[in-house]
């Protein structure tokens, strides 16, 4: 039984979150470093270049890396303060095992032996697939590749999936359908050259801050900006056109635009004829999507829809960007395809200033999904069900087809199977599903059913609190490897310091575990990240995500290489689809018809308000790292309910009031933040916090049928004003932490309460 071994308040005393407020030795310590290490930010898919200052073998701060071309020194606040995750009081430095009295520090060997025994027991009693792996894409390419190989050959389970299932999969699936390849079509350099920039479902300023400057540089040249979002985001505030549409109506809007492009003949007929297939079917699907129809579904005035179509249709060059807003839906893939239809219909792709991209959210969301911890993929972006693809990987790995498991369950389906008692054991790393999966009380119930759960992490995450064994792993700055950014640029991560105590890089842990499981023949040669990368190069060879021509030296020399890079002399490919050549066998792109369908859950009398969730600029995903950094907690200590004053007035709610939000899954009480920048029929909650403050108590396990991404962005809720005594205890603790971050005083004086 994997309940938390102690009440959460007691676990918090030992494992945090506590705050790290200052560098090692405090602010008065000598800030002159012994050396600067060029590497990249550990957080989002922008993968900004940064130099870490190292003194006495500790990271003590950062220095901007001006030469790295993507960000040229720019960093968001998470990047500025990320060094404070090192030397942190909450850091796990020895293996832990659950006892009747909480977690006990144990010998590494004892923890490994227990883990291996339990894996073998569960797999003997219940079959190989009864043990699952949930991994994540903050891991380097090397670790992602290894996680895939470890699950398939080390454990022999087909049930391996990753947290990119909550991030990139709708975009990936849509891109593969339309283009035959899953990568941003352009490097970001083309954003600057575009005349119209269309941003759908992306809070660019907060979730991919560096992209903001690319968009502004285009605007400096006179480019027009269209932002589609139920909220007026910091970038939207000044956009030429803001379309605050109803949550879940994105493909209604893009269908309506395609309808008008056709009606007004704002199409590139030559491009459509020569380089695409399926246009007629796509048009058929939008033939009734008049501005009036679109207006009814999106809640936008018809005139705004016409203005957007005109602006997009008449542009000479353009760049379309989208992100989780349209992808976190039960029709995420359709939303993506309908955006691509707008791009293909105007023929504006594969040329300077003409492009398209999803803004990959996670640090290595791009590379991680290419190399094998996605349940349906093998390295090189290969298909695990394709016999030729399997044969190539079997050859590289030296295994038989029978030894290579097939397609497994996706992340949410794995959690469902745990809840149903079909999966009995779990290895989790780099993933905090208790915070990040929808319907969090369901996730908690599932984790409590596991017979055995081993967790690899550098802090005790909320998911880790439910584990039986915790193996301390290494931070980003404690290992080397490569990562692939939102642009498709492969970059080099460099090691700044050694992991503390017994902590060690995830790849070392997996290689050791494989050896103890008697599978060393496939893993013992992995003595370094470089050795793993060498195998990855060969495994990816000939796949769409071809890294064969990439070496560490080449990446460092060029400050990144864009895949595909099929041989050692190849310079890489910043812009895909030049000359209208796509990756399908006939070289043509595909229009995918996207007939309208509503979200899985829609508002009704009982739950009359739309809920959408997202991020703030001060936190990253489930907050395991950022909720421990003083400066970031000071700026944004706790979640809140964002609502329009008109909706607030209807319920008698004022700024700061306690509001109970209830969905069919559960409820929570949060302070109100009253803002005019959100639709009056919609509320918003940031999702970085656990337990009683988790936005995912409200969200549903509704999945896109193709990508299996959960519909985080569309739920139906009701709200009611309540009294402040109903605020969860955790809120008071977070307010105290904000005070501590601001003042360095741990105790909140009474008058501040």
């Amino acid at each position: 039984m994997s309940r938390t071994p102690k009440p959460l308040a007691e676990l918090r005393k030992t494992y945090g979150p506590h705050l790290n407020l200052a560098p090692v030795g405090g602010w008065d310590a000598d800030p002159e470093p012994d050396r600067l290490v060029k590497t990249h930010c550990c957080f989002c898919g922008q993968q900004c270049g940064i130099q870490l200052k190292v003194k006495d073998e500790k990271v003590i701060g950062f220095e901007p890396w001006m030469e790295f071309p993507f960000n040229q020194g720019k960093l968001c606040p998470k990047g500025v303060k990320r060094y404070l995750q090192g030397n942190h009081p909450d850091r796990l430095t020895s293996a832990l095992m659950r006892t009747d009295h909480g977690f006990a520090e144990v010998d590494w060997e004892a923890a490994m032996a227990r883990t291996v025994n339990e894996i073998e027991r569960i797999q003997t009693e219940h079959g190989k697939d009864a043990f699952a792996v949930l991994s994540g894409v903050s891991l380097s390419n090397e670790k992602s590749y290894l996680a895939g190989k470890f699950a398939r050959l080390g454990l022999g389970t087909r049930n391996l999936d990753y947290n990119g299932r909550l991030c990139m999969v709708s975009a990936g699936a849509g891109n593969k359908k339309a283009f035959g390849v899953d990568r941003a079509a352009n490097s970001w350099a083309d954003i600057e050259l575009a005349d119209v920039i269309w941003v759908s479902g992306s809070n660019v300023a907060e979730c991919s801050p560096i992209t903001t400057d690319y968009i502004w540089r285009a605007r400096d040249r006179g480019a027009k900006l269209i932002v589609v979002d139920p909220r007026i985001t910091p970038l939207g505030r000044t956009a030429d056109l803001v379309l605050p549409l109803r949550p879940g109506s994105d493909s209604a809007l893009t269908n309506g635009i395609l309808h008008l492009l056709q009606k007004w003949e704002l199409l590139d007929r030559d491009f459509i004829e020569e380089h695409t297939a399926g246009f007629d079917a796509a048009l058929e699907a939008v033939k009734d999507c008049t501005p009036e129809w679109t207006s009814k579904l999106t809640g936008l005035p018809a005139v705004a829809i016409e203005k957007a179509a005109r602006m997009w249709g008449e542009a000479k060059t353009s760049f379309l960007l989208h992100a989780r807003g349209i992808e976190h839906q039960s029709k995420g893939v359709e939303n993506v395809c309908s955006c691509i239809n707008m791009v293909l219909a105007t023929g504006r792709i594969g040329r300077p200033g003409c492009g398209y991209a999803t803004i990959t959210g996670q640090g290595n969301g791009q590379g991680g999904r290419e190399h094998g911890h996605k349940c349906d993929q093998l390295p090189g972006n290969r298909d695990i069900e394709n016999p030729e693809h399997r044969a190539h990987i079997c050859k590289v790995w030296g295994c038989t087809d029978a030894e290579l498991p097939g397609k497994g369950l996706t992340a949410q389906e794995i959690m469902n199977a745990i809840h149903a008692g079909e999966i009995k054991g779990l290895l989790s790393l780099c993933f905090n599903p208790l915070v990040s999966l929808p319907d969090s009380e369901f996730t908690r119930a599932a984790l409590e059913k596991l017979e055995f759960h081993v967790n690899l992490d550098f802090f005790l995450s909320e998911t880790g609190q439910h584990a039986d064994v915790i193996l301390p792993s290494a931070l980003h700055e404690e290992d080397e490897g490569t990562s692939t950014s939102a642009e498709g640029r492969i970059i080099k991560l460099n090691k700044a310091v050694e992991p503390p105590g017994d902590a060690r890089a995830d790849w070392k842990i997996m290689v050791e575990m494989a050896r103890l499981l008697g599978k060393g023949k496939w893993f013992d040669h992995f003595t370094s990240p470089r050795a793993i990368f060498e195998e990855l190069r060969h495994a990816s060879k000939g796949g769409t995500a071809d890294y064969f021509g990439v070496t560490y030296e080449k990446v460092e020399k060029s400050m990144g290489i864009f895949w595909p890079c099929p041989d050692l002399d190849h310079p890489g490919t910043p812009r895909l689809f030049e000359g209208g050549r796509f990756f399908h066998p006939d070289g043509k792109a595909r229009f995918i018809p996207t007939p309208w369908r509503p979200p899985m859950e829609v508002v009704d009398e009982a739950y009359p308000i739309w809920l959408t969730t997202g991020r703030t600029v001060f936190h990253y995903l489930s907050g395991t790292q950022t909720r421990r950094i003083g400066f970031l907690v000071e700026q944004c200590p706790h979640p809140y309910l964002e609502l329009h004053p008109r909706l607030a007035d209807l319920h008698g709610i004022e700024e700061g009031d306690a509001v109970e939000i209830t969905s069919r899954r559960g409820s929570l009480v949060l302070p109100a933040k009253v803002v005019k920048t959100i639709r009056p029929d919609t509320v918003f909650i940031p999702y970085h916090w656990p337990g009683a403050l988790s936005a995912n108590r409200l969200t549903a396990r509704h999945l896109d049928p193709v990508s299996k991404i959960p519909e985080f962005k569309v739920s139906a809720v009701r709200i009611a004003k309540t009294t402040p005594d109903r605020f969860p205890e955790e809120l008071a603790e977070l307010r105290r932490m904000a005070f501590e971050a601001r003042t360095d005083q741990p105790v909140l004086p009474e008058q501040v309460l």
Partner: protein
Amino acid sequence: MVSDEYGFFIDPQRCIGCKSCVGACGECGTHKGRPMIHLDELDRLESPQTTPTVCMHCEDPICAQVCPADAIKRSEDGVVHSSQKPRCIGCQNCELSCPFGVPIVFSGLEQMLKCDLCYDRTSEGLKPMCATVCPSQALLYAPKAQVELMRRAKPVREFLVGSLLVKTRTAVMLPDPETPLHLDAALLIEGGF
């Protein structure tokens, strides 16, 4: 010396409120964890507008004029520096008189510290830290001639404070008057396009 060719430009229009500037400013080895930048949310109910304040580096700095201890100096290159530690008496005259609200007298330190354009960096040809990290380049440090060509917003270096004309080294960017502003989603939905 800080190059006269380079200017510091504040463009609140581009500000995304991320406080990277504040965080990075605090990292400086000279003021050790104390940011010199203010970043204000103007009125979150009405707008997501945020605005950063760094020192405007006045030609005839009021903070220096009112300093009874003559502790605030402007160097030849136009940079107004933090108070000189031996002279500063922590009286807060500077704090109260600055029209932009820049100087801070830190309790415990009993000394006024302020944005000095990262003199350690800019005097060696580097950008100030805030303008280096700023993701949207709302804080921009670049050759003045280049900015004229690069940006549509226009730099303003003269401000009327009451009846007093204040001329500054740092510029505030005045938005292109045609740039729209969207502040209320309800009004947009009702047809305010």
